[in-house]
C-alpha cells in the first residue's frame, strides 16, 4: 500500500513538473512569435514614409490617398505601442488592416502612372512592400499557430490544474475584425492576372 502511494506521488509530481515546463515553454514561444510580429510591423511602419516620399512629387493631385496612408500609419504606430498578447491585439489587427487597405488603394493609384513605376526606385520599394506584407502575414501565421496551441494546452485536462502555477493566461489571436475582410469574395471569371 505504501509502495503504491509512493509510486502515485512520484507520477503526480513528475507530471506537474513536465506540464509546468511545457506550459512555460509554450508561453515563451508565444511571446517570441509576438515579438516577431512587432518587429515586422515596425518594419512596415518605417517603410511607409519612404514610399510616400518617393511617389509624392509625381502625384500631387492624389493627396487624399497619400493622406489616408499616412494617417492610418500613425494610428497603427500609436496602437502598436500598447499592444501585447494579453490585450490590445484585436485593436492592433484592426488598425493594421486599415493601413493595409489604404496601402492597396495607393498601389492601385501607382499602377495608373506607368512613368512613375519606370523611374526611380518605385519598383524596388514595391518589392520591399510585398516582402514586408508577406513577413507580417507569416509572423501572424506563426503567432496564431503558437498561441492557439498555448491556449488549447492550458485549458485541457489535466494541464489546466497546472495553468495557474505557471501563470498561464489565454492570449489573444491576431485576427482581422473588419467585416469587409470576412466577406465572401466576388468570383472573377475574366481570367485577368490579379493585381
Amino acid at each position, binding site marked *: 500500500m505504501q509502495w503504491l502511494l509512493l509510486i502515485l506521488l512520484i507520477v503526480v509530481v513528475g507530471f506537474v513538473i513536465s506540464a509546468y515546463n511545457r506550459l512555460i515553454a509554450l508561453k515563451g514561444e508565444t511571446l517570441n512569435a509576438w515579438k516577431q510580429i512587432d518587429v515586422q510591423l515596425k518594419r512596415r511602419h518605417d517603410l511607409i514614409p519612404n514610399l510616400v516620399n518617393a511617389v509624392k512629387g509625381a502625384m500631387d493631385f492624389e493627396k487624399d490617398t497619400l493622406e489616408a496612408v499616412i494617417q492610418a500609419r500613425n494610428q497603427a504606430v500609436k496602437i502598436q505601442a500598447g499592444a501585447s498578447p494579453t490585450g490590445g491585439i484585436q485593436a492592433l489587427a484592426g488598425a493594421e488592416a486599415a493601413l493595409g487597405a489604404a496601402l492597396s488603394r495607393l498601389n492601385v493609384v501607382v499602377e495608373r502612372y506607368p512613368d512613375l513605376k519606370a523611374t526611380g526606385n518605385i519598383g524596388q520599394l514595391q518589392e520591399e512592400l510585398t516582402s514586408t506584407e508577406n513577413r507580417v502575414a507569416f509572423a501572424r501565421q506563426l503567432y496564431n*499557430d503558437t498561441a492557439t496551441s498555448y491556449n488549447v494546452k492550458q485549458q485541457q485536462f489535466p494541464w489546466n490544474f497546472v495553468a495557474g502555477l505557471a501563470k498561464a493566461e489565454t492570449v489573444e489571436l491576431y485576427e482581422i475584425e473588419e467585416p469587409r475582410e470576412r466577406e465572401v469574395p466576388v468570383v472573377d471569371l475574366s481570367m485577368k492576372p490579379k493585381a
Partner: protein
Amino acid sequence: MSATNLFEQQRQNRRRSAVLVTVFVLFFAWIGFGGDLILYLQSRGGEPGQYRHTFPFIGIAATLLAAGMTGFAWKSGAKQVLSATGAWELISAATDEERQYVNVVEEMAIASGLPKPRVWIVPDDDPNAFATGSEPKTAHVAVTRGLLTTLNRDELQAVVAHEMAHIRNLDVRLMTLLAALVGVIAIISDVTMRGMRFGGGRGRSGGGKKGGGGGALVVVLIVLWLVAVILAPIISRMLALAVSRKREYLADATAAQFTRNPAALASALGKIEHAAGATKSIRHGTAHLCIADPLGRRVTNKQGFVADLLATHPPMAVRIARLKRMAYQYEQTGEIVEPAL
C-alpha cells in the same frame, strides 16, 4: 484549428521515418554486434587458454567508426558541399532578382520560426536548390542562378520553403548519419568477404569441435549473419533511400504549411521538371538535399518498382499530384492536410 491537423499528419510522417531509421540502426547493430555474438559462441567451447571472444570489438569499432564519420561530416560537411558546388555567398544583394531572393528567405525564416540561414547562389543554369548545415542555427540555403531566372516570386518562395523545411526537420543531420552508417556497413561487408576468401578453412575446423544444439544455433546465426553481410551494402543503401524519399514528402508538406500555398510549389516543381538537363555543379552526395534530383530527370521520371527503390526523390508526378490535392483541399476547407501515402 487547421494547424493541429497538419501537425498530427507530420507527427505520423515522422513516426514512419523513425521506424525506418530504427530498422536501419538494428540492421547496423546486427552486422556489428552480431559478428561478435557469433565469435563468442564459437570460441566458448574452446579449451582453456585458447582465445575467447568475450569483448565485442567488432560492434564497438563499427559504432565508433560511424560516430567519428558522422561527427566529422556534421562539422565540416556544409563547407565541403558548398565549395564543391562552387556556390558564392550572397551578402549584399545587387540586382532585383537577388533582393527578391534574400527577401523570400527572410520571409520563410519568419514563417518557420527559425533563424535566418546564410544565403548562397550556385552559378548553374539548371534550376535547383539545396539546404545544408547540421543545425538550424548554422544552416545554409543555396539556389542555382537558373532557379532565380525560371521561377516567379511565389514559386521561389515555395522552393525556399521546402529547403527551410529540410532544415527544420533536421534532415541534413539525419541523412549525414545514414550516409556514415552506409559507409561503415560497406567497409564491414568488404572486410568480411575478403576474410572469408583467405581464412575460410580455420573457421570450419573451429566449428567442428562443437556439437549438439549450440552448434546448430551457431550455424544458423552464421548463415543469417553472412547473408546479411553479403546483402548489407544493397540493403543499407535502399533503407537510406527510403528514408530520403519520406523526408522529401515531409518537406513538401511542411513547405505548404509555411507558405499556405501548395499550388505554388506544385507549379515550381513542374517548371524545374521541364527544364532540360542535369545540375552538373551539384554532385551525387548532395542529391538528397536538393529540391529535385540533380542527376537528371530520367531516373526520377521512370516509375515502377526498381526505379522507385533507387531514387533519392519520389517521382515528380506523384509529388505534384499530392501538392495539387493539398491545394484543392486548402481551397475547400482552409486546412492543409498531407495526403496519406
